[in-house]
C-alpha cells in the first residue's frame, strides 16, 4: 500500500505499523531516524504500533 511519511510517498506492506512505515521511509531515503515520536497529520502523537492504512500521512517531526 502507499502511505506518506513526511509527505514522501512510501510503499509499504499491508498490515504495516507507523514504525514500519517510518523505517521504510528511512531506508528508502537514507534519512536517519532519531528515536523520537511519530505524529499524524493533526499533530497528535501516535504510538509506533499504530496501524497504517492506504494513503495515511504520518510525520517524524510534528507538522505545523
Amino acid at each position, binding site marked *: *500500500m502507499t502511505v506518506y511519511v513526511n509527505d514522501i510517498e512510501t*510503499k*509499504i*506492506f*499491508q*498490515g*504495516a*505499523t507507523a*514504525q*514500519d*512505515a517510518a*523505517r*521504510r521511509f528511512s*531506508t*528508502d531515503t537514507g534519512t536517519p531516524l532519531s528515536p523520537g515520536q511519530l505524529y*499524524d*497529520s*493533526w499533530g*497528535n*502523537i*501516535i*504510538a509506533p*504500533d*499504530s*496501524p497504517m*492504512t*492506504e494513503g*495515511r500521512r504520518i510525520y517524524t517531526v510534528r507538522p505545523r
Partner: protein
Amino acid sequence: MKKTTILSLLALLGTAFAEQVTILGINDMHANIDNLPHLAGFLKKERARTPGALLLAAGDNRTGSPYVDAVSQPGLPMIKLMNQLGFNLSTLGNHEFDSGRTMLRDCLDAADFPFVCANVRVKSGAELNLKPYHFFERNGVRICVLGLIQTGDNGLPDAHPEQLKDISFRNPFEAVRDYAFLRDKCDILLLLTHLGFEDDVKLAQLFPEADAIIGGHSHTRVEKETIVNGVLVTQAENKVKFISRLVFDVENGKVKSRAYELISLPDFPADESMAASVAEVKNNPDMLRELTVVKSPINRRESLGCMMADAIRDAAGTDIGVVNMGNVRLDSFPAGSIRVEDCFRLDPFGNKTAVLQVSGAELIAFLNAVPATDHHGAPCVSGMRYKATKAAGERKPMRITEACLEDGTPITPDKIYTMATNSYLLSTVPARPADPGKALELDGADSMIMYLEKQNTIDYSEISRADVTVE
C-alpha cells in the same frame, strides 16, 4: 429592578437543573496488564470524586500479552480483570476476533458489562451477546452509547478472515446513519468506535448528532480538545498509558458544555488488589505447557534461527522462510521440554510474520542485504540453503555464491517463490522486492507455538543452512 430579579431567579433555577456527567474512555489496552494496577489506582480516586463516572473501552482490549492470548481460553483473563475494574461498556476492536467467534462469544458471556457494535451481523444460530447501543442514566441524564468497528478494503476488520466466519460487517459510515434517531432518545449521544482517529474525524463530519466520539484503533494520543463539526473527538493512545476524561454539563436535556482531559495513568500509585490479580494471571500454568521435546541441546544461535524460520514458513505456507539473527534472542537451548513461555523468550519482539512473492533474483538480493540492516549475522533460512562470502565488519552486505532449495534444486533468478519473513526485515532491508507483501495477524512467537506443538520431538542440534566465509 423587577426584570433583573426575574433573570437572577431564572439563572438560579437553571443552575439547579444542571447535572454533570463524567465519562472515562480508554482504548487499545492490548492486554497490557502490567499497567492495570495504575488504572485501578486512578479509578479509586476518580470514583471517590465522581461516583457515577462511566468507564468505557473502545476495543482491542486483548492481544499483546501471552498471559492473555496464549492461554487455553484466549482473551478471558483480560475480561476477568476488566470485570474487577468495573468497566461499564466496551465496543469490539478488530483484535477481539483474534481467537475466533466461539472464543469471542465466551468472552462476551463472561463480561459483567455489555458490548456494543452496530455494524456487525452474525449468522442465525451463531449469535453473540452483542447489541448496537446501550443506554445509561446518571443523575437523571440519559446517555446513549453506540458502538462501531472499522472495516478495511475487503469489508472486514483487520483480523484473520478465518476467524470471521459466520460474521458480516457493514461499512461504519453507512451503518451510523441508521441510528440518527438515537439523538432524540437521550441527552448525551456518544459513539464508542474502533475506527482510528482520522476516520473518527470523518465520522464526526458525517454524524453531527453525536456529542462525542471515544475512539480507538490508531493508538493516537489526543492531548488537546478536538472538536470537528461540533463533535468532540477523543482517543487515549494505547496500552493503558492514558485515559480520557469527558465531563458534560447537561441542562434541561441539552449538553451545555463539555470538557476534555487526557490523564497519564502511570502517575497514579498501583492498587495492591489489582496487582495481586495481575500476578495471579501471570501465574497461569498454560504458559508452562510443553509444546514438544528438544532431543539434543541446541548450541548454535543459527540453529535456533532455522527453527524460527521453519516455524514462520510453516505458519505462512510458503516456499522459503527468512529470519534475521537479531530476532533470535537465545544463544542456545537445552535438551528437554520447550514450553509456551520459551517461544516468547526466543522472540519477544512481536514482529508480525509477513508473506510476499519474490523472484529468485529478488530473494538473493534480499538475503544479501539483510546483514546491512542486522549486524548480528547472516540470515537464517528455511526451505533452502546457501553459501556466501561477507566482508569483515558490521553491517557489510554479503554475497551469495550458491543457493538451492532444500531438495538441492538451484534457486533460479527468474522463478517466483513465496517467502515468509518478519515485518522488521520487510521494512528495513534496502533491497526491496517488487511485491510489497502482507503482514499476517500472527507474530513470530505465535508461529513458533503453532509449529512446535505439531512436532513430537525436534532436533536442530546440527542444523546449519548458511555457509558464510568472512573475507
